[in-house]
C-alpha cells in the first residue's frame, strides 16, 4: 500500500483523497515512512516536520468528511526548500548563520500552499543562501542524487529535486536565481519550472539576488508541476515586484500539450547554447528531442543569440553584487548567530566575527566579488557593464521571439557530476548554469523537462518563452513528456543497497 502511494502523481493522489479511496493521513504516513527509509542515504531534508504534516493531513480529511470541496492538490505532500520561511519551523537557508532560527511568519507562498491543503513534510537541503549548483555548499552536508548516490542532485535546490526523484514527496518547491530549479530538475530526471520574474511572490524568500530570485515548482510530471504553479502564483501586495496580472493558465496548457499536437508552433534552437563545454551525450539527447517536436508538428529552426555567450560573466557580477547587499542584513543583531559578544568587542568586531563564523566559503567569495564590483572605480567596468549586457541579452530574446514561439536548449551542459568533483574550482561549478542564465537575466519563464538519458543519467530539455507566457513552456514540456510515453523517473534505479 505505502509503496504504491509514494509512486502516484500529485494529481492522482489528490483525486484518490477527494474520492475517499485513501486518506491524506495515510498518504502523509507513506511519505514519512519513505523518508525514514531512504533519507539517510539521500539527505534531501534538513528538517522533517512529521507532527505538522500529520496535522495538516488530518485537517484535509476532516474538511472532506464535513463535505467541503477540496482544492486540486489538497492532501498532497510537499517538500519545501529551506530558503522559504515557515512560521514555527526552523529555517536556515542552508547556513550556519541561521541555525536554530524559527521564523515568526510564513512566506506568502507558504500561506498559499497551506490554504490549498498541501501537506508540508519538511524543509529541504540547499546550497547556502542558494549559492551553488550541487548542494555541496550547504552547511549541513551534501545531498545525493537518487540516480547515483555518488553524484550531486544539482543545486541550489538539490534537496527539493532529490526528494521528488527519490519518491520522498510528489512535489517540492525550489527557487531559481540563475538556474537553481531547472538545473537540479534536469540532472534528477524530473520537471522544474522557473516562472516569469514577478509571477510568484518573493515575500518570505530569504533574498539572494532580488532582481533574479523566483520560486517555482518541481514534480515528476508536467501536470503536477503545473498544478503547483497555479497554487503559488499570483499578485502579492507584500512584494513590490509582484506582477498584478492574471495567472498564466498552465494547467490547461499542460493538458493541451499532452495531446501531442504542436502544429503551428515554431521552436528556435539557440545556437550559442551548445558546442564547447557540452557533453556529446547531452547534445545527442537534445537533438533527438528536437526531432520529436518536429514529429508532433512543430517547425524547428536554428536561431542565434550572440550575447548569450556573455551571460555567465554578467550573471557572476550581478548576482554577487546583489548578494553582497542583501546579506548585509546578517549583522548579528536581529536574528541568527552572534559570536564574540564578550562585553569587550565592539559591535563591528562582533559583526565581523559572526559573519566569518556563520558564512561558508562560497558565500564569502560572492560577497567579496560583489563588494569589489560595486566599489567606486570598478563600478562602471564591472557592475555597470554587466547591466548593459543584461539589456543586450533581453534584446536577443526579443529578436528571437519575433520568429519563434519558444526557444529550446539542453538545460545543463553535462549530466549530474560527481560529488567533490568541482568544489575546489568555482569557475567549473559556475559553468553548470551555462544554459539557464540567459532566461534568468531576462526574467523569462523557462522549464526543464526530462529528455532521455545519457550514459544512464537524465538529460533535461530547457524550454524558454516570452514574459508571462509560462503556459507555452508547460504545453511544449507536456508534449515532450507524452512523446516518451511515461515519465523518465520510472527508469530510475530503485534505491537499495
Amino acid at each position, binding site marked *: 500500500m505505502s509503496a504504491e502511494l509514494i509512486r502516484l502523481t500529485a494529481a492522482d493522489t489528490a483525486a484518490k483523497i477527494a474520492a475517499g479511496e485513501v486518506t491524506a493521513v495515510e498518504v502523509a504516513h507513506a511519505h514519512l515512512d519513505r523518508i525514514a527509509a531512504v533519507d539517510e542515504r539521500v539527505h534531501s531534508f534538513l528538517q522533517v516536520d512529521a507532527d505538522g504534516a500529520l496535522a495538516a493531513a488530518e485537517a484535509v480529511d476532516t474538511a472532506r468528511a464535513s463535505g467541503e470541496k477540496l482544492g486540486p492538490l489538497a492532501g498532497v505532500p510537499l517538500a519545501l526548500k529551506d530558503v522559504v520561511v515557515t512560521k514555527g519551523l526552523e529555517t536556515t537557508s542552508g547556513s550556519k548563520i541561521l541555525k536554530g532560527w524559527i521564523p515568526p511568519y510564513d512566506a506568502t507562498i507558504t500561506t498559499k500552499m497551506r490554504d490549498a491543503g498541501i501537506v508540508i513534510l519538511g524543509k529541504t537541503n540547499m546550497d547556502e543562501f542558494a549559492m551553488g549548483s550541487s548542494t555541496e555548499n550547504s552547511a549541513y552536508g551534501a545531498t545525493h542524487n537518487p540516480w547515483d548516490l555518488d553524484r550531486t542532485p544539482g543545486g541550489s535546490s538539490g534537496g527539493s529535486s532529490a526528494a521528488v526523484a527519490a519518491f520522498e514527496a510528489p512535489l517540492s518547491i525550489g527557487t531559481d536565481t540563475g538556474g537553481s530549479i531547472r538545473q537540479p530538475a534536469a540532472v534528477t530526471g524530473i520537471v522544474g519550472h522557473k516562472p516569469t520574474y514577478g509571477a510568484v511572490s518573493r515575500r518570505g524568500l530569504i533574498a539572494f539576488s532580488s532582481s533574479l530570485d523566483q520560486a517555482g515548482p518541481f514534480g515528476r510530471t508536467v501536470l503536477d508541476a503545473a498544478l503547483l504553479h497555479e497554487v503559488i502564483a499570483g499578485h502579492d501586495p507584500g512584494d513590490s515586484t509582484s506582477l498584478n496580472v492574471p495567472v498564466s493558465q498552465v494547467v490547461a496548457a499542460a493538458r493541451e500539450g499532452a495531446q501531442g499536437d504542436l502544429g503551428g508552433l515554431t521552436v528556435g534552437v539557440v545556437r550559442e547554447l551548445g558546442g564547447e563545454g557540452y557533453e556529446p551525450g547531452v547534445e545527442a539527447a537534445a537533438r533527438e528531442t528536437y526531432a520529436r517536436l518536429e514529429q508532433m508538428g512543430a517547425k524547428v529552426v536554428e536561431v542565434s543569440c550572440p550575447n548569450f555567450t556573455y551571460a555567465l560573466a554578467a550573471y557572476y*557580477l550581478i548576482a554577487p553584487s546583489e548578494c553582497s547587499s542583501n546579506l548585509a542584513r546578517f549583522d548579528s543583531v536581529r536574528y541568527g548567530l552572534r559570536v564574540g559578544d564578550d*562585553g569587550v568587542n565592539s559591535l563591528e568586531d562582533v559583526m565581523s566575527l559572526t559573519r566569518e563564523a556563520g558564512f561558508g566559503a562560497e558565500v564569502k567569495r560572492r560577497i567579496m566579488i560583489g563588494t569589489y564590483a560595486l566599489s567606486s572605480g570598478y563600478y562602471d567596468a564591472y557592475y555597470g557593464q554587466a547591466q548593459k*549586457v543584461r539589456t543586450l541579452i533581453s534584446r536577443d530574446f526579443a529578436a528571437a521571439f519575433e520568429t519563434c514561439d519558444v526557444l529550446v536548449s539542453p538545460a545543463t551542459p553535462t549530466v549530474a557530476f560527481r560529488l567533490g568533483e568541482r568544489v575546489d574550482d568555482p569557475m567549473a561549478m559556475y559553468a553548470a548554469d551555462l544554459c539557464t542564465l540567459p532566461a534568468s537575466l531576462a526574467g523569462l519563464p523557462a522549464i526543464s523537462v526530462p529528455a532521455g538519458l545519457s550514459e544512464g543519467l537524465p538529460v533535461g530539455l530547457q524550454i524558454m518563452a516570452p514574459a508571462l507566457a509560462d503556459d507555452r513552456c508547460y504545453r511544449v514540456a507536456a508534449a515532450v513528456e507524452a512523446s516518451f510515453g511515461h515519465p523518465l523517473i520510472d527508469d530510475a534505479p530503485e534505491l537499495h543497497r
Partner: protein
Amino acid sequence: MPAISREEVAHLARLARLAVTDEELDMFAGQLDVILGAVARVGEVAADDIPPTSHVVPLTNVLREDEPQPSIDREAVLAVAPAAEDGRFRVPRILDEDA
C-alpha cells in the same frame, strides 16, 4: 585585467565585515583573481550607448491607503533575536568608552 592582491582581498573582507583568517586570504586571493578575470569578459562587449537593466520589471512606487494593520508581534521577533532587553534588540557597545 589587474591581478587582485592579498592586501586587496583583506581590504574587501574588512569592507564586507568578514574577519577572514590568513589561510582564507591565501585561498580567496587566488580564486577571486580567477573569477574576476573571467567575469571581466563583459568588457569585451561594445555597449556605450546601451541602457543598463537593473530590473526586468518596470519598477514604480507602489502606494496604498495608510491604514494601520497588525504587524508581527514584537515579542515573537525578540524571542528569536540573539539578545534582547527591555523590549528591544540588545547590541554590543557601539561607541568606544575611552573615546
